[in-house]
């Protein structure tokens, strides 16, 4: 019998939904653990960071790394796992593009710390205590990782072999990718795996009539027609600018796509691409009228980068 694959899974700054997505392969999960040994998965098997350090370089066949790089510990683990893995996959929106935690790049580090530890109305902190990288307690010194100024993607700190989008990646796509790995059938380095090359609109069953619109609606302001394209009903939906692979899950639930699968091939900035789509759908050749229509969009910058601010061209707010 051929030697079993050695796989690893690690999470950095994220919610754990990527692990739930792996678990949501349900009965097929048993096939995964039959075909592969999990040699590192801090939440699942008893291998410690120190054990990983003792692995020969390249010992892990495939490492799924999920989560953004938010602090010094995340970066340290990314570098360690890069060294120990033959193939490193940026798994999920956070590792690939910064994800929802990347929205923090609209704020600065001090603003976050002061909101959480000083200003929050339930916080009782008269002495203005802030978490410290080193704290001297009676018994010794306690340490914490350093909280970075900005959220980074995995590829910002190490070389990445494959990118697998989704928040979280659809479980059927995880099964597909795993089968490709077992079959030794991976595409060229740098490819996006577990997703479509076409947009979410291609997977969406809603009817498109190439209609233009005179106003935008926020999601709470309108009950959309369940059969027709959301964008053509005035609800900003990221579908046209977003890579498919999810089966248009959110439009199926009558809500707009927010872009978790990231941009299509060849697009260097997801949000910029979507500006073009919005500019095409509104019916206004007069600048004042067009500006008024755009003013109906409640969060013009945030909407473009829900999942990918750290991977965007501008990356973060600068003052």
């Amino acid at each position: 019998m051929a030697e079993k694959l050695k796989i690893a899974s690690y999470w950095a700054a994220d919610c754990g939904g990527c692990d739930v997505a792996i678990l949501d392969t349900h009965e097929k999960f048993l096939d995964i653990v039959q075909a592969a040994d999990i040699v590192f998965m801090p939440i699942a098997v008893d291998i410690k960071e120190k054990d990983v350090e003792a692995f020969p370089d390249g010992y892990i066949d495939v490492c799924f790394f999920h989560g953004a790089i938010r602090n010094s510990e995340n970066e340290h683990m990314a570098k360690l796992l890069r060294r120990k893995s033959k193939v490193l996959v940026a798994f999920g929106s956070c590792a690939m593009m910064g994800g929802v935690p990347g929205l923090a790049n609209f704020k600065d580090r001090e603003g976050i710390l002061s909101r959480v530890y000083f200003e929050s109305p339930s916080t009782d902190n008269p002495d203005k205590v802030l978490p410290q990288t080193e704290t001297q307690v009676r018994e010794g010194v306690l340490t914490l990782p350093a909280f970075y100024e900005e959220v980074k993607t995995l590829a910002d700190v190490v070389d990445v072999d494959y990118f697998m989008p989704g928040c979280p990646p659809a479980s059927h796509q995880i099964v597909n990718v795993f089968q490709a790995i077992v079959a030794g059938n991976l595409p060229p380095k740098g490819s996006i795996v577990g997703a479509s090359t076409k947009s979410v609109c291609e997977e969406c069953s809603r009817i498109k009539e190439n209609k233009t619109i005179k106003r935008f609606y926020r999601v709470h302001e309108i009950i959309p027609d369940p059969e027709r394209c959301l964008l053509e009903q005035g609800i900003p939906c990221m579908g046209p600018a977003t890579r498919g692979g999810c089966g248009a899950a959110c439009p199926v639930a009558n809500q707009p796509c927010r872009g978790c699968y990231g941009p299509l091939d060849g697009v260097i900035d997801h949000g910029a691409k979507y500006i073009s789509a919005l500019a095409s759908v509104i019916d206004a050749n007069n600048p004042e009228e067009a500006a008024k229509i755009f003013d109906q969009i409640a969060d013009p910058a945030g909407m473009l980068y829900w999942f990918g601010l750290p991977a965007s061209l501008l990356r973060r707010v600068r003052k």
Partner: protein
Amino acid sequence: MEQSFEPKIIGFLCNWCSYAGADLAGVSRLQYPPNIRIIRVMCSGRVDPSFVLKALKEGADGVLIAGCHPGDCHYESGNYKAMRRYLYLKKLLKEFGVEDERVRLEWISAAEGARFAQVVTEFTETIRRLGPSKFKEKAASVGKGA
């Protein structure tokens, strides 16, 4: 420091009107600051918003987009599209803490050489006043893995 600042401006000019206008400024020997680097595009509607963001990231202090006057687009509606994108881009830049005056949209026809020179002069002064853009990153750091 301020004295040594020479703005770098990228100009995306449409082939049919504004580029011809710039050409006219040249053959008419009109004086305008040398800070603009011109990229000819077939239509202002060809200017993807990412071109503008990329220019800012890679070292531009200002970006000029110029196309045919409304109604005159060689492709009928490209300039309207450009106008709508530009309006959104300005909103976006403000939220990132960038002065939205760093990006400017103008309609300049093939006959408006003098207007081209005037726009460039004014725009260069605007950017000089704003100072260097905070969004410049070293060219080498653009792209993955930087």
